């Protein structure tokens, strides 16, 4: 099966600035694929290159096996959902959804039928005559999706469309987007800097940094088995301790850091003497328990979030170490300034090149 989208050694330069550096990847048919990265990492540039608004400086983009060079955005089998949605304010909901069909010269009756079908899909059946400004944020979102789906694209591109919504609605829309994607079976390419969105919705995630892809994998891969320090630090919260590898034994390694020697899993088979960072997730950091690695310092802060509590300890070198706890043990965290100790087990710690 040919890939839905194939990005082949794509490089995009703006003057002297290289936004995307030699990126190659394949996105499968019907996949929910996310590009995750901080702002300025080049993810939006990749999206604009796929949609045709940005010509590649080098490399090629193939959609359904067909080379897209020289084909304008209005000729490509893609549809883009803009960050601010870009709904047409002077048109009604139905006119917005039908715009792509009207441009293609689809007859009015056929168009109306299709628009009704899509209004049904987004659960706005009887609201086709409403103006855009009369809709709520979530409804606008759904209209934008329907407008894009109306032209039956092979690939739907989404540029952080949920970023303008409030938290509750954002979480609701995640489920809704996923459900719509399953129903229509179109390949979704989703751009976000929010790792929660990427993890909950995507089949696969490409984590990007400075124009390059750091890692591609499903949510579990990216979160639990990061391949680079950037992925470990960017996806989710993490405690990082940087130092030099002193000892390697089997799949474990010992690293000398400013707060002492720590042992973790040597995932990338680093040799003795290499600069490295040991990462431990806050939820794997334990408080008030004995573990293979022990850290001591002063209690600094306990941020209560209801279900979880984030405990912060100032380590001996002044850096902060966070442990996230659920339920009772967190209540025993002493007032700030008192001595405390955290611990973690070796198999929960990952050592990656710094």
């Amino acid at each position, binding site marked *: 099966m040919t890939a839905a989208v194939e990005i082949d050694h794509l490089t995009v330069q703006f003057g002297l600035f290289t936004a995307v550096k030699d990126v190659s990847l394949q996105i499968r048919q019907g996949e929910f694929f996310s590009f995750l990265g901080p702002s300025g990492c080049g993810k939006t540039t990749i999206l604009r290159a796929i949609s045709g*608004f940005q010509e590649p400086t080098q490399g090629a983009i193939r959609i359904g096996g067909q080379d897209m060079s020289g084909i304008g*955005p*209005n000729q490509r089998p893609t*549809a*883009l959902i803009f960050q601010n949605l870009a709904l047409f*304010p002077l048109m009604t909901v139905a006119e917005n959804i039908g715009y*792509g069909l009207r*441009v293609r010269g689809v007859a009015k009756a056929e168009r109306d039928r299709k628009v009704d079908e899509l209004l049904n899909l987004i659960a706005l059946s009887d609201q086709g005559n409403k103006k855009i400004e009369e809709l709520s944020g979530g409804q606008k979102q759904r209209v934008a999706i329907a407008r894009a789906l109306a*032209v039956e694209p092979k690939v739907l591109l989404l540029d952080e469309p949920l970023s303008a919504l409030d938290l509750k609605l954002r979480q609701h829309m995640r489920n809704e987007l996923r459900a719509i994607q399953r129903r229509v079976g179109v390949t979704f390419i989703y751009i976000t800097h929010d790792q929660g969105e990427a993890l909950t919705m995507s089949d696969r995630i490409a984590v990007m940094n400075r124009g390059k892809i750091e890692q591609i994998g499903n949510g579990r891969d990216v979160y639990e088995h990061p391949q680079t320090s950037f992925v470990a630090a960017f996806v989710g919260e993490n405690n990082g301790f940087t130092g030099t590898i002193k000892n390697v034994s089997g799949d474990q390694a010992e690293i000398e850091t400013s707060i002492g020697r720590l042992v973790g899993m040597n995932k990338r088979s680093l040799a003795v003497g290499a600069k490295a960072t040991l990462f431990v997730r806050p939820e794997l950091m334990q408080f008030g328990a004995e573990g293979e690695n022990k850290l001591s310092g002063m209690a600094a802060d306990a941020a209560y979030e209801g279900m979880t509590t984030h405990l912060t300890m100032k380590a001996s070198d002044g850096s902060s170490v966070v442990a996230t706890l659920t339920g009772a043990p967190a209540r025993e965290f002493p007032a700030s300034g008192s001595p405390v100790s955290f611990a973690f087990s070796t198999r929960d710690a990952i050592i990656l090149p710094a």
Partner: protein
Amino acid sequence: MLSSTGHPFIFLLPVLALLIFWVMAKFEPKPVGVTKKSFFQRNGTPVAIYLIVAVTFWALFMIVLPQLFMVEMSFRPKLPPVEMGGPKDLYTFENYHYFIYGSTTSSDAINWVHIKAFFLTILASLLVALFNFALCYPLAFYMAQVARPARVRFLLLLLIAPYWVNEILRAFAFRIIFSSGGLINKMLLGAGFVDQPIDFIGNDIALYAGLGYAYMLMMIFSLYNAIETLDHAQIEAARDLGAPWWHIHAFIVIPFAKPGIASGCTLVFMLSAGSLAAPLVLGGPRSLWFTPILYDRFFQAFNWPQGAAYAFILLLACVSFVLLVLRLGRLSLGEIAK
């Protein structure tokens, strides 16, 4: 007929109008429970008094009274100064009557010369406005949506710089360029496109070009301001949905910029219809623009009342035409003033 010695009445009119507005404001239903700071509380008494007095003085003495005075004058007969205010000074429609039936010889034949000039002026001004729109839209779109800021500043400078030259001088420059031995004819002859020089001035081409150019900035700025507020993502969204370029302009950009288009077109239309310098300098021997006729009423015929009547006719025609256009375009006055 009413005696026209009623000058006090003219001065009372604005006061009466203010009184009516004040009464209307009193009866205006006020939102309940909303306590807004009054104008005086917001600005402080001295500033508030200054603003009210200054604005009232300006509006009354600079705008309302002179206009009312002209309107009143248009209903009076032409008399030598000694007879003004005398028994012959009665209100009359003769000046308006002259526009339709008057001539130097009789007062029964229809005054085709003036009526034709009047309608030609309205029609030509309309065409100048439309031509200007067609000319300025691509440039305004380019400046508002495509060009980088540095390029926009450069283009604005290029657009504004020629207007440092005054209007009469510019009109004469056009006359030189368009004359039969002028630059354009020389180029056309030299390139072999024509055998005979084209009579641009006699055919009024120079006049329309001059009028179009004189008010181009009004159009450019109106369009630029309107198109500039259009979110570029809207254009990209339409393109992404498969729209060809003309469809984007016809159904996304132009509907959005409609208020700006209306304001640009009405400005150019009004200014062209009331323009004097360009028709005087660039008008061909056969061309009859209404404003030079109007000018002649005042300074050739020394008939100020008739001139006032003609000016009032032109003003009414222009205003009603603009209101009609707004009505057809389903626009309010407030929208085009944005």
